[in-house]
Every structure is written in structure tokens, then in C-alpha cells.
């Protein structure tokens, strides 16, 4: 089976590859994620107890405090940040956090990411040219 490239909008530039981690909940990086371990610590979150480290994190959008941008930076410095992120629609908190942390971030995929991507699907994010490539 050949690979499939899906166009998207680039928010934070870069290229990365990794296995998908799907969340249907919005994420407030301040409070929801432990900056030391990258584990989701919010009990009501659908990723509760799961590490986002080195995953391609798929979630609808960010929420909560703007300090969340800095938490992404801390995750990155601690080596436990996602390798890339895909949003349905990016908002400033996650966008700014991704840029300052060198994490590629895209949104508005031409095909609904929840339809084409499953947990552990291997994908490549190229937000220099603006596409997501399904490698599995």
C-alpha cells in the first residue's frame, strides 16, 4: 500500500515523524500535563495516565491559561514533549507554545484526522510544505 499525503495548514514549522496519539478532548497544557514526565494528569481527560512524549498528538484545540505555551517549552526542554501536533483548529496558546518549543504543528487537515488516523498509526508531519503523510 502506498503512502497517503493529506494537505493541511502549517502553524509551527518543522518536520517530524512518530506514532499517533488520539485525544478527543481539548488540552490545557497548564494543569492537564505534568511538565516533568509528559504524562496527562487530569483525571477527566481521555488521555489520563498516558504519556505524550514523542507521540504525534492529535487533539481538537488548546484551552485554558496562556501559561500553557510555556509548559510546552518546559516539556520540550525536559525531553518529554510530543514530536508533532495536529489540531482540528489551532488557537494561540498551543500555536505559540509549539513555535517556541520547535514542535511542528498543523491544523485544518483536508481529511478529518479522526477518520484517517488511529492510535499508533505512523505518520510524518511536514509543516514546511504543509502535509501529513500516513506511512503505515
Amino acid at each position: 500500500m502506498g503512502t497517503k499525503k493529506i494537505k493541511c495548514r502549517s502553524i509551527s514549522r518543522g518536520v517530524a515523524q512518530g506514532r499517533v496519539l488520539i485525544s478527543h478532548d481539548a488540552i490545557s497544557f497548564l494543569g492537564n500535563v505534568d511538565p516533568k514526565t509528559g504524562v496527562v494528569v487530569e483525571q477527566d481527560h481521555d488521555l489520563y495516565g498516558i504519556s505524550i512524549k514523542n507521540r504525534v498528538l492529535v487533539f481538537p484545540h488548546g484551552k485554558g491559561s496562556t501559561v500553557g505555551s510555556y509548559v510546552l517549552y518546559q516539556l520540550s526542554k525536559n525531553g518529554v514533549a510530543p514530536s508533532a501536533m495536529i489540531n482540528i483548529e489551532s488557537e494561540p496558546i498551543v500555536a505559540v507554545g509549539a513555535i517556541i518549543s520547535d514542535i511542528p504543528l498543523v491544523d485544518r487537515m483536508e481529511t478529518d484526522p479522526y477518520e484517517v488516523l488511529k492510535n499508533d498509526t505512523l505518520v510524518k508531519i511536514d509543516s514546511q510544505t504543509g502535509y501529513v503523510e500516513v506511512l503505515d
Partner: protein
Amino acid sequence: MHLTKEEEQTLNGEDGETLQKAIEILVALGDIYGADRLIPIKSAQIAGVSYKTIGDAGLEWISDLEGKVKVPSILNPAGMDLKLWDEMGISPQFAQKQHEIIKAYEKLGVTSKCTCTPYYLDNFTLGYGDHVAWSESSAVSYVNSVIGARTNREGGPSALSAALVGKTANFGYHLDENREPTISVTVECNLSGADYAALGYIAGKTVGSKVPLFFLQNEPEGDELKALGAAMAASGAVALYHVDSVTPDARRMKFEKTDENIIIEESQIREVYDKIPDNTAQTDVDMVAFGCPHCSADELAHIARLLDGKQVEKDVWVCTSREIAERYPQFVDKIEKSGALVVCDTCMVVSPASENYNLMMVNSGKALSYVPSMCKVPARFGSIEECINEALRA
């Protein structure tokens, strides 16, 4: 988004990594909000200063940046008075981190003044139609509404990016079409002083993030407009409002009443004054705080007059910018002789020292919104005179 050749070069990293990241943030925000280009700004005001708010995460990021800001840039209030922190009850550990944050900003060429009212300060006064990138919600409201200059409500990193690049993305309140009123608020009673803070506290909850056009019985003054806007930015998310025949956009554009109109009655204003927070019926006010937003020279003079020759029985903070305090030592002297503290660089909302109290009394609708949630201290509301009387009561 259209970028100039120079901007493209910066985006491609030819001017260093810090500027590359900075312009990348501006472009990303511009793309998200549909901006056509970057526009030059006159000044920047940067949020994300109090160690209580940004913690080690923010400190790390700011410390790692290099370069110098291109326009006059100033800071939001810090978590403590940078000189009198010990008197405020701040721990040395917190003070150490707070000083590190200020030094990190200074290294980037940001002035180490910390205030939510930069518009009173030299180098930060603005005129009608000026574009800036300011962060603090009450300052944003004042800039847009009372001065008629233009800014979005910037986050900490985006304001700092704008300062480093000297530009911001052209969207939101920078554009005429987003500055028109989308809801009207008609007030049926006369208002003065803290009534405007109470009005903002009520109106913000209904208005949300719309642009309200007020129809008032009186013509409010600058400090009253400041209090109105600050309260609405806290209880709602109002970044721009108009007062019919008063504020600069409203005078020029002569806006008509919108289809949606809410009416605010005297009884609603009174309720804000009369409200006793839950479980505090037996609790005495042990702290009275003024200066949210930071006191103007007029407000400082007013408080000094009311406290002249008297002794306060409770802890009293009068929060203002260091520059205003230094410009008017005669007012500061009178206030401090009464036993009240003139607190600079910080305020009751962002300082962890507020958490040492059981019940706070304020004349600010913004503080009334934030003190209970951010400091976990219940708050009561009163006019400047009522607050002073409470401070003098044994």
C-alpha cells in the same frame, strides 16, 4: 499573509534564532486570525511577569532569548514590589525568582517598570489611531476605548515577539470593521466614582467578548472609564467599548444603538456594593486595597486627602506604578504616615502576599472578579470613601 522581503529573511532565520521564532509567532497568529500583513507598532506591554503566573516554565523561556526589543517595551505588574517585597510578606525564594524574571526581560532591552497603566508614563503615551501590542486586559481596554489607539489583547510571548520585531499582525482590533459596537448597554441611573466599576462588573458578565456601546446619563471621567473597562475585561472578555458621545471612536463615528440592547438599573449597581461573599458574615475585613488598575495621580491625591492626619487600623495597600509614586512624593508621604502602604510594581491580584488575608475590601470591579478566584480570598466592594472608612474602623 503577505510578508516583505526583509520579513521573509527574518522568517528564514537570517537575523538569528530569537527573531526567527518571534516573527514565526506573529505570522502564525496572523494566519490563524486572517491577517493580511504585519504592521509597525509604537510600543509593547508584555504580560507574563509575575513568578506566581509564569513559574519556572516562563522564566526558562525568557532567559533563553537573545537580542533587543525594537520599540519601547514595558512590563505588566510583577508578583511583588521590587523593593518593599519583604514588608509585603513575600518569601526570599519567591523574590529571588521574581528578580530573575525581571533581569531576563531587562537583558532584552525591556524597561523594568511593571505596571498595568503604562499610558500614564513617559514613552508610552498614545494618540488616536496608534497601533501597539499591549497585553494587560485593562490596559488593552483603555488603549482601544479611552485613547482610541489600537491593540489586540496580546499574550506574553506574542507581545514580546512584537516588541522584538517592532511589528504585530494586522487583525482584530487593528481593523475598522472589528471596532464597531455589537451590543448596546443603556444605564438608567446616575453614576459616579466606583459605580462605574460596579457597572463594568455587571455588564461584562452579559457582554462577554462583544463590543458594547454604552448610553449613560452622565459623562464619565478618565479614571471612571478606566474602572469600567478594567471590570468588563475581568468579568467578561471586553477589549473595546464605546460610550456614546464620550469615547473617541463614538464621537467620530456617531454609532447608532444596536439591535441588541440591555438595560442596567440602579438596583443591580447597588447589589454589587451590598453583596456579602459566602461564609464571611462573621469575618472582618482585614485588608483594604486600592489601585486595580494602578492609581493615577488624581486617585493617589484623592486617597492621600482622605487619609491625611488619620491612622489606619487595617492593612491598606495603595497600588500604583513606581513612576507615578516617584512623581508625587507628597501624596505617598501622606498615605504612608497613616500606616497604609504604597505598593509599586505589583497589585493585590498578582501578588501571592494577598493570600495572607481573610477578607479584602476593594473599590475595583476587576479586583472583585479576580481576588476570590486567583488569590482564594473573598472580597467586598465599596466606593473609595467606604473603603477608607473600613480601613479606619477599629
